[in-house]
Structures are given as C-alpha cells and as structure tokens.
C-alpha cells in the first residue's frame, strides 16, 4: 500500500473556486503543508486538478506530523568546518 505525499507549493489565491475546493478536499490549507493520501485513482484525479500547485512523491507509508517536521529541522548544536590555529 503506497501513498501520495502531497505538499502545497504554490498558493491558490485568486484561482477559481473549483481549484480551491480541490485543495480543501485534499486537506491542504496553507503553503508547504504536507498531507498523505492512498495512491488510488480518485486521489490521483484530485492531484491532476491542482498539479501546478503541488509537489508529489510516492511513499510507502504515512509519516506522522512529527516525522515530517523532524525531516526539515536542522541538527542541534554546531560543528567546526575548519579548525583555526589559536593565537
């Protein structure tokens, strides 16, 4: 069972009501929001309606909200790129 990982990349401001309705039906409310839907023809058809606005990947399982957030969170702390000799 695979899923579509759908991220809203472009806003639908100023686009027809039908287009914004499709985004609402997909559960996309704001830019860069990510939702998961089963890889089935009915969801593929909905994505086709908004293909200019979203980025889509096929993934094996639904990630939780926390996992999606962890992907784009940088690692804590710092590392030294190049050690400089102390004076």
């Amino acid at each position, binding site marked *: 069972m695979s899923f*579509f990982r759908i991220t809203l990349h*472009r806003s639908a401001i100023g686009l027809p009501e039908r287009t914004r309705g499709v985004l609402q039906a997909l559960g996309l409310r704001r830019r860069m929001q990510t939702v998961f839907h089963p890889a089935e023809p009915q969801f*593929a058809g909905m*994505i*086709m309606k908004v*293909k*200019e606005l979203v980025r*889509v990947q*096929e993934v094996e399982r639904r990630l939780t909200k926390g996992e999606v957030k962890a992907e784009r969170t940088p690692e804590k702390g710092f590392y030294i790129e190049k050690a400089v000799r102390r004076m």
Partner: protein
Amino acid sequence: MFGPFRATNPLSGGLLWKIPWRLSKFQKRRHRLRLRAVDSVVATLDAALAKRGQTLEAIERWKAEMPTEEEMLPKDKYTMFDRKEKKYRKGIHKLPKWTRVSQRINPPGY
C-alpha cells in the same frame, strides 16, 4: 517640470502599466522549471497507478495531448496564440495567473 507634482504619464493619465513584451532569460528559466515540475507530478501519478495496474482518463488525456517540456518548441513555451496580436502571438506572461496554469498547446498552423 520638476518636483513632486510634475506631469508624468502615470500622474496625468492614471494607470500606466509597463509590461515588457517578452520574458527575460531568468523568467524563461523559471518558467521551464515550472513546466518540468508539472511534468514530474504527472509522471509520479502515472508511475504510481501503473504499479497497481490502474490508470486514469485525465492522465491518459494529458499524456496524449500535452507535450512535455523537452518536446515543446520555444515558440510554444514562451508565447501563446492571440487573434488580436500582430502575427497572432503574444508573450505567455500576458496570460492571467500564467505561473499557475498550464498553457502548452496552440491552434495548429499558428
């Protein structure tokens, strides 16, 4: 002649919009990237459904009718048909919401 109340075109006439008649090379590049992004979305959907042995009429129609970014002529990428224009072509950036709609094919012969 000078100063804040000088009679320039935008001040005296109200609206004066200056939209260049053609795209810059940077606009063209971003436009190509957007076209490719749409192609990749369609390819992803098609591959995912093909794995399950399913298909979709909208995808089949898109593949049959719409050229991909590589297949498109520069003329169709950056300009579109308009019956009121000289030589029947205008820049694609004159199309409302042109960065968020698909405008790839034009009438045959134009």
